[in-house]
């Protein structure tokens, strides 16, 4: 009779999964891929910080950055600022994806992005602009 045996295996499997879920107290972020994205974003921040402060660039509700006020950037520099924004968003997308992957849960990418979106905004300096949940720009 396989009935008790099968039931036992099922219960053990369920407990094993529950234990895995409970063990997940911290997210893994110490991987070479994440470290190098972090370093790349950190070195770019020197150029982005004045743009946040002037309101030219703001933090979006979906965890990216965007050109908010092009007129705050001299025409000659607009191309460069757009490239900066594109590079930053590329790194951010890769960061969210890498954190999900480092934790063996690629399907968490959007949750991680949403978490970061909130945290970037709540840790932003006074005077910086961010998008509220409706998508309108708000000055912090």
């Amino acid at each position, binding site marked *: *009779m*396989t*009935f008790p045996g*099968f*039931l036992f*295996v*099922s*219960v053990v*499997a*369920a407990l094993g*999964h*529950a234990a*895995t*879920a409970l063990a*997940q*107290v*911290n*997210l893994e*972020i110490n991987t070479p891929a*994440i470290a190098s994205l*972090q370093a790349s*974003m*950190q070195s770019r*921040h020197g150029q982005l910080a004045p743009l946040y*402060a002037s309101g030219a660039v703001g933090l979006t509700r979906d965890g990216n950055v965007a050109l908010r006020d092009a007129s705050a950037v001299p025409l000659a520099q607009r191309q460069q600022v757009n490239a900066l924004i594109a590079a930053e968003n590329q790194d951010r997308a890769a*960061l969210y994806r890498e*954190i999900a992957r480092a934790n063996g849960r690629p399907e*968490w990418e959007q*949750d*991680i992005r949403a*978490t*970061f979106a*909130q*945290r*970037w905004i709540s*840790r932003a*300096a*006074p*005077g910086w602009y961010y998008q509220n949940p409706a998508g309108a720009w708000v000055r912090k």
Partner: protein
Amino acid sequence: MRSQRIAARLAGLAGVAALAGCVTINIYFPAAAAEKAADRIIDEVWQLKEGGAPATVKPAPKETK
């Protein structure tokens, strides 16, 4: 004979239910852990931890989460 068959069926159903339980448990997203991880990365990227950055006076180390 017949009752053994039913028992086997029930065992099958129990197994499926247990496996479904696993899936449900694993969908859980650790929101608090994700916030902590995000904050650690943001500290690095925006250089908020080193004493310098005057624009980023932190209110209190503990936030209610």
